[in-house]
């Protein structure tokens, strides 16, 4: 029996680590998606932002973020208290003791799985503020976001705080990860303003087409793959028949919702614009994935497809509306992760009988309000102290030259010596 317990501990830990590695790969997806949807003169800088924010997120979450989100002993259900660095792992004796409270996976594997989630939330921000935000202001924001803002609301739900006690349900993070990231992005975009030339004085919209749609498509497929880890790993356990079936269900539903999102967004775009818009179809896939993330276990695959489809329709209308109110989001991150994240939270009670609309709305409002206010204050301080936007000339010449001094495709532009 001891050996069976040890083996299932090993299996669940292994499963958790592999799922975490899948989620880590989503960082590559965001990098490619964003590199594809910005102009070529801003490619190097957006890639640098993506790799640097990942590193900052991992470091800050290890130093303090994880301890805030999962405190050993919380002060109260609002305030987890602050402590630093990771603790030790489980002893064999505790594992083979069995029973309800016995650990069934390595606590360091839990840290690893959680740290790639905070990086995902931060990646959402980089796309929305692309092509005009100062690199170092962005990275300083990343320090606060991943070390404090994200872990606080994460504690309220997944760490066992007051949102969890209120019955708020969020399986893998439509709210805790996606809505949180999108809300921080929204606060930043409102203070940052639109890219120069995006909106005419008469309210007209001047599109700034992305430079590389193959990269954007590759990025979307990478995110789609990573999402199996994101949702599948969030089941937290695989080592018995019931849990293994649950994980399989989560995989099937996650895939179904993404497919539904593509179909719905593609048809919506075709009906509205008369053309098949690839970027909308890509956003539709992500919208389907975000929509199902709050509850990928209880729907049937048919219902999961429908939940994804509603996300796909929503995201197209949301992107058009954002442009109408002049919220300039080059990759559609606020629509995909924010607007559809809210839909995902509200869709939970449709299939999960333990969830209720009231507590879902409560959680949604708390996450939005906390993240928006906290982010807005941080962005505001950065704006006053060091500025958050590059100069008009730097924006025209491109972030690559202004911030990095190098271009992504130098052969096209520079003179040969």
């Amino acid at each position: 029996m001891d050996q069976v317990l040890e083996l299932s501990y090993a299996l669940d830990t292994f499963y958790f680590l592999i799922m975490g590695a899948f989620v880590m790969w989503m960082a590559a997806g965001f990098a490619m998606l964003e590199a594809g949807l910005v102009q070529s003169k801003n490619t190097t800088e957006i890639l640098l932002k993506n790799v640097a924010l990942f590193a900052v997120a991992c470091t800050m979450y290890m130093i303090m973020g994880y301890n805030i989100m999962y405190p050993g002993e919380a002060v109260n259900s609002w305030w987890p208290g602050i402590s630093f660095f990771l603790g030790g792992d489980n002893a064999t004796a505790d594992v083979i003791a069995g029973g309800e409270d016995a650990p069934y996976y390595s606590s360091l594997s839990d840290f690893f799985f959680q740290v790639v989630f905070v990086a995902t939330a931060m990646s959402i921000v980089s796309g929305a503020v692309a092509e005009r935000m100062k690199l170092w202001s962005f990275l300083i924001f990343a320090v606060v976001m991943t070390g404090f803002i994200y872990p606080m609301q994460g504690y309220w739900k997944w760490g066992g705080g007051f949102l969890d006690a209120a019955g708020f349900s969020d399986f893998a993070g439509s709210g805790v990860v996606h809505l949180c990231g999108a809300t921080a992005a929204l606060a930043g975009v409102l203070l940052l303003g639109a890219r120069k030339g995006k909106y005419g004085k008469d309210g007209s919209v001047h599109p700034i087409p992305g430079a590389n749609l193959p990269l954007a498509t590759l990025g979307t497929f990478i995110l789609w793959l990573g999402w199996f880890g994101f949702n599948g790993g969030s089941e937290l356990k695989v080592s018995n028949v019931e849990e293994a079936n649950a994980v399989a269900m989560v995989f099937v539903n996650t895939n179904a919702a993404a497919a539904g999102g593509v179909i719905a967004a593609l048809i919506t775009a075709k009906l509205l614009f008369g053309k098949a818009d690839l970027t909308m179809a890509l956003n539709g896939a992500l919208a389907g994935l975000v929509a199902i993330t709050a509850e990928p276990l209880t729907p049937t695959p048919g219902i999961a497809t429908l939940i994804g489809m509603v996300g796909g329709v929503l995201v197209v209308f949301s992107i058009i509306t954002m442009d109408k109110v002049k919220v300039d989001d080059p990759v559609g991150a606020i629509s995909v992760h924010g607007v559809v994240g809210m839909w995902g939270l509200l869709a939970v009670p449709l299939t999960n009988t333990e969830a209720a609309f009231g507590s879902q709305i409560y959680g949604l409002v708390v996450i939005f309000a906390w993240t928006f206010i906290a982010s807005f204050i941080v962005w505001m301080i950065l704006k006053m102290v060091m500025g958050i936007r590059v100069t008009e000339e730097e924006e025209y010449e491109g972030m690559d030259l202004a911030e990095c001094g190098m271009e992504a495709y130098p052969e096209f532009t520079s003179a040969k010596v």
Partner: protein
Amino acid sequence: MKLITAIIKPFKLDDVREALSEIGVQGITVTEVKGFGRQKGHTELYRGAEYVVDFLPKVKLEVAVDTDMSEKVIESIRNAANTGKIGDGKIFVSPVEEVIRIRTGETGPEAL
């Protein structure tokens, strides 16, 4: 000597090059260019918003030939590049004062 400059549709470049080879033209210079004429631009769509592309891609062809060849060259470019639709392009003819071959220093029609 004449310099014949033709702006043509990019997909017609191969036809024009073959036609010119057939009548014995020894060399041409080709540049990818953008511009507009009576064809104007066209509209494209990105994330639901339309925008006008003002300048269309064209190919600019430069051929320097002896004066007595120029009518033949013009005729042959016209025939090869003609689709009968708007946007086929234009041919400009200008006099050339001197031509020098860099390798040998030959000048005039000899250098063509």
